[in-house]
């Protein structure tokens, strides 16, 4: 009886883990690190029946306290290219999207244009003047 209970529990745990993993896979199809301190994630949102193209959501994330300005080029499995320039705030992100014939981002290249130091924090030693 105990073995049966352990077996059922194991099955539930494994199925739960698989389900969670599948859910995560749907949430984010893939991620890249185009530059040190940045992450690029993308996912398919759906298919535009009218334009016969895939809607792809893309996000650049900044994991540092610096301001990044860089140019990017994104490629798909249908050899499409998307160009752009993005500015990322400290710990910030930039969302954008596009319609692609391809359904997978295969490569991403980035060229750093500028790195700025993080903005100084406000000094609060003295009360503010009204």
């Amino acid at each position, binding site marked *: 009886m105990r073995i049966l209970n352990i077996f059922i529990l194991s099955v539930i745990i494994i199925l739960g883990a698989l389900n969670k993993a599948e859910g995560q896979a749907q949430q984010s199809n893939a991620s890249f690190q185009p530059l040190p301190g940045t992450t690029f994630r993308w996912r398919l*949102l759906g298919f535009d029946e009218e334009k016969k193209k895939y*809607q792809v*959501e*893309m996000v650049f994330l900044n994991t540092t306290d610096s301001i990044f300005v860089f*140019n*990017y080029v994104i490629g798909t499995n249908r050899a499409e290219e*998307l*160009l*752009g*320039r*993005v*500015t990322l705030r400290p710990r910030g*992100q*930039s*969302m*954008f*999207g*596009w*319609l692609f014939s391809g359904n997978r981002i295969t490569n991403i290249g980035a060229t750093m*244009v500028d790195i700025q130091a993080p903005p100084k924090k406000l000094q609060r030693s003295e009360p503010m003047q009204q």
Partner: protein
Amino acid sequence: MESVNEQFSHQLHRSVLIFLGVVIALYGISSFFPNSFLWGVNHLAFLSPVHRLIMLTAAITLGVLPISRRYLGALDRWLSSRSLTRMEVYIVLFVIGVIGTFICYRFRIITDLYGDSRTLLSLLSGKVYAIPDLFNPKDTEPLTRYIHQMAANVFHIDQKVAYEIISAIGGGLFLLFYLLFVLRLEGSVSWKILLVILGLSGGANQLFFGHVEDYTLVYVCSILFLIAGWQLFEGNATLGTMIVLFVVGVRLHVQMVLLAPALLYAVLHHRRRLSPKFERWIEPKRLFAGVALSVVCATLAYFFYFHADRYLVNDQAERFQKVFLPLVNPLPPPHYYTLFSIGHLSDVAQEFLLTVSPVAIMVLWLVIKFYRRVDWRQPRIMFFGLAVFYFQLFNLTVNPLLTMERDWDMLSLAAAPAMFLAIALSHQLFEKKLSSAEWATTTGVALAGAVLSCTIFYLNTTEQCVGSRFLGIGKWAFRSYYQGSSYLINVGEGMISDKDEQIARGDKTIRELLPDASMPDFELANLYHKMGNLLYARKQFIRASYYYGKGLDNDQSSATATKAIVRIALQLRQFDDASRIISYYNESANQPTVIDFDGLALAQRCNYFRYLQSIGTDSASIQKELDHFYETGQ
């Protein structure tokens, strides 16, 4: 006795001529106020001054006794000299019905803004009605939709065209049955001429002019029900027909249920022949008590079932759910539109003037003067009185979700019982009591009112007139019911073909409405937005950005206005600003779930233009890309 008749004749002449004066003054004065509360009678305001003058002169000419005596006398003599067999009458009426159908279709309403035609058509494109739907109590008008959808499928025509054709056929059927009813009445030819004018001049007849909504068939059904009701009180066995028409009518549109008290009265009146105990139930005192009890029940339902006395959010869902107008409205004046606000009471009166025939109004006017001559206990008067009371109570209390001006079609069903009450009253008041001169005066004045009232049919066929009328009623709606007024104004301005004039008119309208605006004002936001769109289409980006900005001041949640400002920033080559705005937008609108992919695509466009600028692309190439973006939006 002779002196009494002379006195009646004198009073009748005076009352009728005063009515003519009031009608001419009302239509004449209101023609100078296209944006006023007089939207039920200011039809002449949308005609040219020459046409206004012609219409007023025609009305006065038709109403003046020496002239009316001539043409009505001739018509009376001509009709009296005709004697047709029953078959000939049917053939003539059939031909009139066919011609009426053709006229209604030929001169159909040019706009689909009246009522909720657009929503109806999109609803029908997404749902196929079947027989089981006819028995679904939650569906308020399944039979009407089933019939129209079936007609569209059988004849392979567009859904909208099916509605237009059936609406016109409804007009033909109305003519056929109403004229047959009038012909069969016991009475003089003069009285019947008056009744024909009464039937033809009601503003509710707009329903027959290719109107795309669910009210035409139920209106025809209610007319047939009321004809059967008249026949019942003449001693004919039409109760079964009335019950069948009632059941069919309720499935055509639920508003038919307002005739239930009248039907109940008819049933009790009919049963009293079989059992005397029913007699006491239709005594006026008990009837009055019954009506009072029903009003108390309705009041309790208003407070405790619908919770309609107070609106909390005042959004579309709450207004739809609570059905009736509130006693308290969260909006400030002049948008404080409640059950007893002056604006609403005025709108109810205008709705009555718009949809009910001026002949019926004239009869009601004369009844006030000669109320002692009316036997109010007559069963027919009680039957039609009950029908009028419940319809008018509904019109008074219901929340017209599209504004009273647009929802005239839903509220026009009340015109049918009002018309029949006027027939019953005129039967008591005039029949066999008037001399030819009195008939000429009364009918002449009735015709004068009818001519002015029927101008609405002409207005509906002319784009320019409809556009101006929408603009006028939209401005009044902004100052009263408020919600949905900007839509009326925008459609009205959209009918102006010259874009520059459209912009100038739009700017003027906003300036006119500003003193009455709230802060924030969502209706005004829509007007600003429309102005922005017009100017963007004319590539006047700076001016467009001003209007979009003002729109956002009034409605900060407007996604389209925000994105429009981003597009303008791109066209003005302020790529960094555009990028910042769209990033802010996407972070608030598209997180954690993407609900607006256009926002993301626009962000990529901003990134792309920033990239082009950063790599030193020449100005001409950037402009080419911007032009492509302007044309395609991508």
